[in-house]
């Protein structure tokens, strides 16, 4: 495994551990973009990050930034800024650090799966979707140039048990979604709070690409739920994600093709088309299926 030379991928802040993952006084070895790194936390809880050299010793020191219950680092000199997600600072929200899950898949396939509402009724049958109501309502996708993010708005979908609190009360509902691709390796959604149409739960997915085909996914949430225990909330989120994981690990080709004709789009794929166009526009090479020369 060698580090990528793609400047677009290098100049991103990338999740490398969740808060509480590294025991004070210990260190944790992982990788990003093909580069081995070590996160060391002192007894007082302050953490540092280094590249691991070929000799196994510490190399270049890397910056660390803590946001949304996650530690981020970057290999680049001019990284794209971390997103602003104000919901995490709202006093009445519960912030759930749902830890992380490893998976053998391309980071961009993981983003696309997160954006794809059509899979709810098959992959998350009886939870996030129902075989009787599989229709994805038309929605809008836009590239917000001021923040350089991809947004999909006005998404609506019938869900039998959209969240922990909905599942407990046994209530199906039409859930409204907004999706927001915040960087090539991070995406989030806003979704109707069960029983409160005014505000949205904020659910994030930050992806650490260890290599082009091996990732760690972090799923912090800032939600409005005064009923469920944290254990129930985390359990729900992990159950959903492991349903996705088996699908993601079996997708072929593993790397993401950017050629328009490579995969036939459906209505639900509008956001994924926008995502691929955006990746192409920024010149992303890492994790992208290279076209065969004719």
């Amino acid at each position, binding site marked *: 495994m060698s580090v990528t030379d793609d400047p677009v991928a290098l100049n991103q802040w990338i999740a490398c551990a*969740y808060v*509480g*993952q590294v025991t004070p006084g210990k260190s944790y070895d992982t990788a990003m973009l093909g580069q081995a790194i070590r996160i060391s936390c002192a007894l007082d809880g302050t953490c540092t990050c280094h590249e691991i050299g070929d000799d196994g010793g510490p190399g270049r020191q890397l910056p660390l930034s803590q946001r949304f219950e996650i530690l981020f680092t970057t290999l680049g000199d001019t990284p794209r800024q971390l997103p602003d997600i104000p919901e995490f600072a709202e006093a009445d929200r519960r912030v759930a*650090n*749902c*830890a*992380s*899950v*490893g*998976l*053998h898949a391309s980071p961009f396939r993981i983003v696309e799966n997160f954006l794809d509402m059509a899979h709810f009724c098959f992959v998350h049958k009886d939870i996030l979707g129902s075989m009787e109501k599989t229709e994805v309502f038309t929605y809008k996708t836009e590239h917000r140039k001021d923040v350089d993010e991809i947004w999909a708005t006005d998404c609506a979908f019938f869900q039998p048990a959209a969240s922990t609190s909905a599942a407990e009360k046994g209530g199906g509902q039409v859930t409204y979604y907004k999706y927001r691709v915040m960087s090539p390796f991070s995406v989030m959604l806003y979704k109707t709070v069960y029983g409160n149409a005014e505000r949205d739960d904020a659910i994030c997915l930050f992806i650490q690409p260890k290599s082009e085909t091996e990732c*760690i996914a972090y799923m912090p949430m800032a939600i409005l739920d005064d009923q469920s*225990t*944290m*254990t*129930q909330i*985390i*359990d729900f989120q*992990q*159950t*959903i*994600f*492991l*349903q996705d*994981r*088996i699908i993601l*690990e079996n997708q072929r080709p593993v790397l993401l093709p950017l050629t328009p004709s490579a995969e036939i789009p459906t209505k639900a794929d509008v956001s994924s088309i926008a995502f691929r166009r955006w990746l192409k526009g920024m010149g992303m090479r890492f994790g992208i299926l290279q076209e065969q020369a004719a």
Partner: protein
Amino acid sequence: MALKLYNYTLSGSCYKVRLLLDFLDLDYERIPVDFFPGKEHKTLDFLDINPLGQIPVLEDGPMRLRDAQAILAHLANSYDETGHWLPRAPALFGPVMMWLMFAGNEIMAASAARLHDVLGYELDIEAARANAHAAFRVLDDHLTERALIGKTWIVSDHPTIADIACFPYTALSGDGGIGHEEYPAMRNWMRAFRRLPGFNAVSGIPEFA
């Protein structure tokens, strides 16, 4: 409720117990344990419940049991009037116990591989996968012999707790990078298992084997 299960949804060992509780149509209370990332099963409070720091734990009235295999045997012994899940006939009882132990020992290598790949546990992944493949070879060979005499299940003419104990970590092995390609008899057996009345899937069980 008389029955209480200390449970983590994604644990294959807890899943064994939930499967039998569902097959027997028993009411029970689930007490969620924050296994990951909370490591609640290693906390002092939980060590009071199980000094081994493992899930599942079942409470049945005043009795408290650990070990998925022991819990399966207890539930079948106490609540299965048909006697099918834990046959007492001498020709069947010993083999059921043997495969039950196999599920609690050799097959657990597949659980280790899954913990490594999904939750990032640090362990020797190559050894775990090799040991799981060795265990699957033994199970697949046995199921092939059974199929040759027209039998579907590991021991009896009916599914037993040996089938339940062996199912979760074989079915979930793909999560740990262990495929089912080389085990056709095991695939047939898993397909039959999924069709049992009362069967509920868990995340990571392939729908089409």
